[in-house]
């Protein structure tokens, strides 16, 4: 199954985001060896050079490392992963707040609705 890529943004930037999510969510765990550029390019159905560019970007940020003998691995630096997780989560919250405000919700109303929804979920679980 090819990765779900949007058509209006650079492909490499979307690959970076998907790989970041996979690392943060533990799909690839700290220290784990990543598939080769070609394997991942085939999986995502994208150009290998574009995948290479995404890897280079992740490497610059320290999230993945090139081992001389063992291909590429995810960083073992948990702090770095945690920091990224927080950054991604904050982005989601930001998008959520923008959308709620566009619907005309004030901050207290959003808080109220959030608590209500959480309670409903607990009941249903």
């Amino acid at each position, binding site marked *: 199954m*090819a990765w779900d*890529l949007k*058509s*209006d*943004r*650079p*492909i*490499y*930037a979307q690959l970076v985001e998907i790989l970041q999510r996979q690392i943060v969510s533990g799909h690839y765990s700290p220290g784990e060896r990543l598939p080769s550029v*070609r394997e991942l*390019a*085939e999986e*995502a*159905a*994208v*150009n*290998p*050079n*574009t995948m290479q560019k995404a890897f280079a970007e992740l490497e610059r940020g320290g999230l993945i490392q090139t081992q001389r003998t063992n291909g590429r691995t995810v960083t073992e630096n948990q702090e770095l992963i945690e920091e990224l997780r927080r950054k991604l989560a904050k982005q989601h919250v930001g998008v959520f707040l923008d959308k709620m405000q566009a619907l005309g919700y004030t901050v207290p109303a959003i808080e109220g609705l959030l608590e209500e929804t959480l309670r409903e979920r607990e009941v249903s679980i």
Partner: protein
Amino acid sequence: MSELLEFVNLSKTYDKRYYAVNHLNATIPKGKIIGLLGPNGSGKTTLIKMINGLLVPTEGAVLLGGLEPCPETKARIAYLPDRSYLDPHQKVEQILEFFGDFYENFSREKALNLLAGLGIDPSVKLSTLSKGNREKVQLILVMSRQADLYVLDEPIAGVDPAARDYILKTIIGNYNPEASVLISTHLISDIENVLDEVIFLRHGQLVLYTSVDNIREQHGKSVDAYFREVFAC
């Protein structure tokens, strides 16, 4: 980035006045997958035929590694034409032999592996295969050559979306960073994620030669959407 293919003031006229390819200048480096895009009649197939030495330029030249089309360049280019030239009454295995006789850089083993992956029995006649499978066999033949340049003229036209995905995967999976792939198509949205760069042709002239991500960054839209804008009637 070292250059692989060069168009130098390249022109082809039909009837001495109609320019199918009009003073084209461009250089294609190694290691790229490039889309050759343009509406019908923009000169894509004429250009491809000149690259392969099937048409002679009226003016200018096309150079592969500095050489004009000759047996040596033909040995280094793997070409998938827009129509089949294979004998449909031959068995797939006979066609493999035919390719092996013609091209020193053809890997029979690789072709057999790819056929096995598709579940195509090499002992059947080409004519018994579906249209989609015939197209796949032809692509397999071309991609099983160890070439410097792969030239694919409309490789995904007329096959179903699953076959298209297979064809694109085969192109990615057999991609060699020392070689380049030139793909002509007007099914842009299906193919743009596998392209590094795109060449837009109109009336035989180069309109644009840039990277896919450049178009997306600068215009905030896909190559497909941008193409529709540039070539809007």
